[in-house]
């Protein structure tokens, strides 16, 4: 079972800051502390969400990371050495060339642990689709063995293994090539938070699909639709990873789940309340019923995050659902193959 940890300074409950009113929690060291704990507990990736996404807003969010996520990811990559790092970035806030550079740089800095959570503007599917294609084409600017570093011949790379995209589409005009070395993963992982408006794009371009539903039945349906969309895009279910977003609400044995009622619902995640054993059972049942590869947890409070790490993660390990992961890159960890450069398949780099 794969596990992701969605990072926030106080917890994902909009009122969580009231219980932990400490400005230091907005700082890098406290956030790194959370990530280090998740890494030690065997989590496969940390998700850096960005409430901002599409527009500037009226104040800092108490539930999203307090820094621009792609740069926060770069900083984190040098201080946490194993966990994957998936940063949200909007297709509206960055030009495709600039965004491609950020993530290609992050993949080098993290030594192959970078992922991009694509945040789209739902108003124009054609633009979003073209945007992702331009970014991924730029990531294929150099073949895997393009860089020679041949001092004697004075040849830094083999020019025949450089690909200039020369993209001219309805929305973007981008010459290329990307001026960053080839990614350690071939290219960074692409993740989507699955919704109605981005389903086709997510199914066509995503390596990791994050499902959001409010009920178990809703989750089973959403997973079935996602698989159908992936297959309709001509891809195999085995080539992607499907994870559900969950809000864990852990109660002690004597409390009963009534104590969980203080936590409101979330539209991006399903609430799972109970004791350690009950939650673990529910995760296993949900994974089996919906055919999931794992879960991304959205701790409502820092305490719930800590309890998931110290109680449920060990329980999952004990039941053999998680274990040591030898993968060094994020794709390795998720059991996905390294991205193969299209030249190896005899394809043009921009479809």
């Amino acid at each position, binding site marked *: 079972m794969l596990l992701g940890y969605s990072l926030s300074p106080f917890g994902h409950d909009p009122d969580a800051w009231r219980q932990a*009113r400490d400005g230091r929690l907005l700082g890098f060291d406290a956030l790194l502390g959370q990530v280090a704990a998740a890494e030690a507990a065997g989590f496969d990736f940390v998700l850096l969400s960005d409430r*901002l996404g599409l527009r500037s807003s009226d104040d*800092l969010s108490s539930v999203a990371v307090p820094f621009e996520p792609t*740069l926060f990811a770069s*900083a984190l990559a040098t201080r946490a050495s194993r966990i994957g790092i998936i940063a949200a970035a909007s297709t509206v*806030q960055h030009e495709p060339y600039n965004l491609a*550079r950020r993530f290609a740089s992050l993949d080098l800095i993290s030594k192959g642990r970078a992922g991009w959570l694509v945040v789209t503007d739902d108003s124009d599917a054609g633009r979003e689709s073209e945007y992702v294609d331009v970014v991924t084409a730029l990531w294929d600017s150099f073949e895997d063995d393009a860089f020679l570093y041949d001092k004697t011949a004075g040849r830094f790379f083999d*020019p025949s293994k450089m690909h200039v995209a020369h993209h001219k589409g309805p929305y973007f005009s981008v010459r290329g090539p990307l001026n*960053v070395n080839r990614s350690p993963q071939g290219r960074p992982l692409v993740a989507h938070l699955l919704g109605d408006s981005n389903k086709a794009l997510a199914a066509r371009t995503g390596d990791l699909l994050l499902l959001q539903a409010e009920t178990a039945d809703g989750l089973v349906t959403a997973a079935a639709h996602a698989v159908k969309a992936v297959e309709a895009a001509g891809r195999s279910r085995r080539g992607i990873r499907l994870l559900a977003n969950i809000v864990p609400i852990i109660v002690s044995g004597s409390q009963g789940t009534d104590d969980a009622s203080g936590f409101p619902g979330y539209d991006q995640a399903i609430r799972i309340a109970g004791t350690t054993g009950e939650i673990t059972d529910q995760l296993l049942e949900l994974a089996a019923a919906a055919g999931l590869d794992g879960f991304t947890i959205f701790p409502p409070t820092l305490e719930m995050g800590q309890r998931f790490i110290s109680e449920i993660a060990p329980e999952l390990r004990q039941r053999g659902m998680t274990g040591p992961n030898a993968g060094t890159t994020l794709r390795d960890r998720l059991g996905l193959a390294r991205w193969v450069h299209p030249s190896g398949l005899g394809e043009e780099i921009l479809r």
Partner: protein
Amino acid sequence: MSRPQMKLGAFLMAGGHHIAAWRHPDAHAQAGSDIDHFIQLARIAERGKFDMIFIEDAAAIRERNPDLASQAARSTAFEPLSLLAAIAVNTSHIGLVATASTSYTEPYGLARSFAALDQLSGGRAGWNLVTSASELEAENFASSGLRPHSERYERAEEFADAALALWDSVEEGAYLPPDGKAFADRSKLHPVHRHRKHFAVDGILESQRSPQGRPIMVQAGASDVGKDLAARTADVVFAASQTKAEAQAYYADVKARLAKYGRGHDDLKVMPGISPIIGATEDEAKAKYRALQDLIPDAVGVALLASYLSIQDLSAYPLDGPLPEMPQTNLIQSRQQLIVDLGKREGLSIRELARHFAGARGHWQVVGTPSQVADAMEERFLDSAADGFNVMAPLFPSGLEDFVTLVVPELRRRGLFRKEYEGRTLRENLGVASPNKG
């Protein structure tokens, strides 16, 4: 310390500033994609108590011809802000200055990115504002081609004002106020509403207030409008000057512009580039220089010279003849003039000019012993040609290591450079005014 204090920046670049640095036997050829290499360089500079490290940028490959591009290590690099974010959490005092273009980014995204670097570093971020003059960059962002020089600066002026306004949209202590009623204290948030010709900006910056008030502004503009923009908005200017007279003229010109924006002489630090090649003896330094120059392929040197001159091709002219006459272009006019002047003044051939510029890329080159290098710096510092220098080591890490272990102690003996950092933020160490205090 009664003497005025010199400011020092370390201009970092993969294997070194010399165009052929990566081919040197001592060079780490993969330095440009090795984050640990850059963290090591930043720590060496921090050990030497440098004010800042500096990263240049181009949002494109720098050479259109694939064969020439494939011979230059500068063809690929880390995106500067990503690189400095990683360095920020592995250093404690040194300033972090990244180049970013006003032509190919938007004010909100850029202001937010530098705010993030400032938060991650505890107030050590700086933005080197450039308008980007290359056609190759333009082609990565639109089909309309490069904007004319005047329009680029008009956009840059508006961009800089929007970024400054966004950084000032959040006051100190705007979040988690002591009364505990709401997450944000709205009286400390000042949404920006600016609708101008190039940009519409609405809202506040999604960040806490910068620990140094706001990030340090850096520029290198040498055209008339560029110098005015610097005098109005910048804390530091970089400059490429070959001779002392050129450096003094530039220094006097920029400083003279400060008064009309209500700023004092010391509110803007002028830091020209210096390319030092250091040897225990003068002969050793010269031998180091020759060994590097011999590694420059003529085709690469001449192509680089052509790109500085903004002309398509120089290969039609005899290598051992003079530069052809050429019209002033829309591009980086100041650097073009500098090259033409040098060629005429010293009667240099295309090959000689190409090697000269390929080596230090238009900056001031000093080849000598640590005390000779310190002499040269001291002279320009005391004679109103510079407030400090942006040090461009030909080879990394050795050139920077040499500077820190040999030249920095020499500058300290002369009372010209700090022994300890004055503060924790870049603004404190540079000694420039904080926007909080007007």
